[in-house]
């Protein structure tokens, strides 16, 4: 942490003390951090917490992203990926096509398969079960992280099943954990403007609670930099923190800067690097009960994600092939990073690279 004199001058001496003592920050504290013009002062606090939790380690995963379909009934205004059924750019993979994607990379030591898609209006529930079972059979050693809370709720509604039943059946088919997408911003005001047909914030949280109750761990995200205020970001953080107090089922928090291109709100100004780093740092500081915070390079760019390892993030995500959701919205990052490149980025930032699986368990490989 930087010198206490710096924080005294910024009027943040009490926050520095709380962070040093491992105390919990209030929403008001978070607001003062967002309002602080000194990005290094805020970042250094987050770095202190991140170092206390993980020392010098920075995690990454060898993963494969599969977006099985972009057909979606939700039509969220911030999305450049979703298409209505019948749209010339709409696609949906058959189970066999999904499995071909997995087969095409069987020679690589992938430990996590990340599968998400739109809320498709008529794919039967058996499609998802078969997909998971097929992937599981092809890659028994890889963990399958699939279907956001939004998709799970959609499957339940479409199939006339309870959420619990959906989760139990998907787990039986091969599901290991849920990714954290679809949380967006919980603020009802913003959701009404951006994604009125998507499940609400409380529904997203309730679904995560149910997953945790079944022993299925999940991640949590926050999409920021559109129409929300910093206060609404903080309310979002406090909401996931409260659920985490209750369930301890979240593994990783992922703040996602909104990518404007090709969306229904492309006229708003994109987030700048400073805002992205501050949001990451404040997330790390507020979420004292979350083990991990991710610098998702797909959205941040590789360069900023590397710097983010000094601003509270401890995870660099993965090698990622064929990511489509962020790139459809104009994300300027690469499509894939090799392991050696990833490790070098981490080492040059001054950290020790640790390969992990989706549960953040270190992966040991024989040389």
């Amino acid at each position, binding site marked *: 942490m930087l010198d206490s004199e710096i924080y005294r001058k910024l009027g943040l001496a009490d926050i520095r003390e709380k962070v040093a003592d491992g105390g919990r920050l209030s929403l008001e504290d978070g607001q003062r951090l967002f309002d602080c013009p000194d*990005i290094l002062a805020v970042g250094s606090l987050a770095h202190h917490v991140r170092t206390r939790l993980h020392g010098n380690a920075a995690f990454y995963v060898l993963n494969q992203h599969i977006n099985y379909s972009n057909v979606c009934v939700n039509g969220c205004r911030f999305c450049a990926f979703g298409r209505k059924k019948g749209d010339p750019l709409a696609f949906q993979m058959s189970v066999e096509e999904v499995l071909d994607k997995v087969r095409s990379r069987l020679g690589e030591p992938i430990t996590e398969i990340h599968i998400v898609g739109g809320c498709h209006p008529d794919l039967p529930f058996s499609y998802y079960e078969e997909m998971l079972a097929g992937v599981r059979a092809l890659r028994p050693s890889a963990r399958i992280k699939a279907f956001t809370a939004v998709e799970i709720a959609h499957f339940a509604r479409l199939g006339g099943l309870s959420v619990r039943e959906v989760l139990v059946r998907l787990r039986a088919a091969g599901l290991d954990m849920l990714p954290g997408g679809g949380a967006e911003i919980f603020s009802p005001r913003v959701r009404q403007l951006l994604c009125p047909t998507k499940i609400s914030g409380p529904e997203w949280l309730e679904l995560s609670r149910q997953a945790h109750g079944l022993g299925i761990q999940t991640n949590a995200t926050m999409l920021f930099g559109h129409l929300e205020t910093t206060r609404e970001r903080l309310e979002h953080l406090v909401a996931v923190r409260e659920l985490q107090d209750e369930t301890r089922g979240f593994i990783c928090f992922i703040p996602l800067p909104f990518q404007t291109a090709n969306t229904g709100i492309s006229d708003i100004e994109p987030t700048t690097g400073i805002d992205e780093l501050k949001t990451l740092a404040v997330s790390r500081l507020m979420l004292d009960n979350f083990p991990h915070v991710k610098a998702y390079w797909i959205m941040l760019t590789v*360069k900023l994600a590397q710097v983010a390892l000094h601003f509270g993030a401890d995870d660099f995500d993965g090698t990622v092939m064929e990511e489509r959701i962020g790139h459809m919205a104009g994300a300027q990052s690469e499509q894939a990073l090799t392991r050696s490149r990833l490790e070098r980025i981490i080492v040059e930032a001054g950290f020790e690279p640790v390969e992990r699986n989706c549960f953040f368990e270190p992966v040991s490989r024989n040389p």
Partner: protein
Amino acid sequence: MLTERSGPSDRSRRLTFPEAADLYANADFYELGRRAHEVRMRKHPEPVVTYVVDRNINYSNVCVCGCRFCAFFRPPDHPEAYVLSRQELGAKIEETLRLGGTQILLQGGHHPLLPLSFYEEMLAFIKERYPIHIHAFSPPEIVHFARLEGMGIPEVLGRLRAAGLDSIPGGGAEILVDSVRRKVSPGKCTAGEWLNVMEEAHAQGLRTTATMMFGHEEGPVHRLEHLFALRELQDRTGGFTAFIPWAFQPTNTAISRFPETAVSYLRLLAVSRLVLDNFDNVQASWVTMGPKIAQLALQFGANDFGSTMIEENVVAAAGVHFRMPVDEIRRVIRACGFQPRQRTMDYGRVTG
């Protein structure tokens, strides 16, 4: 002609080489940024970040140097080799002026055939027609002209100045250590020659900038030697307006390696700000690092956002294509809590 010079240091003692090496190798990321930012705020207490509206015009891509890090040059007989016509040059300058530009950065390769009179006429052509500052010919070009004509550096500079040259860009410095230059740019002028051109230019009243291109085949010690060589010359002349470090971009070049990362860039930038205590200005390089890291550079010692680069060809040839319109530059500067302010080459204010 020279404006007020930066004193060696407002701190009682300047960094020694071993101290700088220790900081560069061992200092905490935050500590380094904080110290550099403190120096920057002492030198420029106003919450302002400057930028210049200009265009990089490459009058020719013909070059016989064959530097291994370069993706821009073409040999003289290559189908893509070109020399800009007067008409093309004029059109580019007119567009620059229309966009509020105040200067052009005019550079080319080491063309084996064009005589010094070609460059004199080009300068005169521009000066007769356009009210624009000409920031032109990096030291390796000046050395090349001198060799080709069998002339001394003072005479070449004197003639170009008489023809309209206003200032000299700090390009071609690469790493100012001959053992490195022999590996990556054996056909280009030596470190001593580069420094000598700048010293002579300063003596003739021409202001110049200084650059460093790092992240190819040099080591950390060479980067520091580069900084100390610049500091020593600046002590004697005070003629440098700014220092601009930028990271080598390996695509399409004869050097195969990973590009320098953002964190290494920020560390080097901060160390530069700390070592070059007699330089007024340090520029962030959004062209190579992108706007997001350039913003952070403003917390790691940089006080200037460089140029709007209405046109840029050399970095683009190496596969990096960041684009920033003036409005976007102003927006990201404001997002860091600074006021954006357009400047001239010598850091005067642009009004109107």
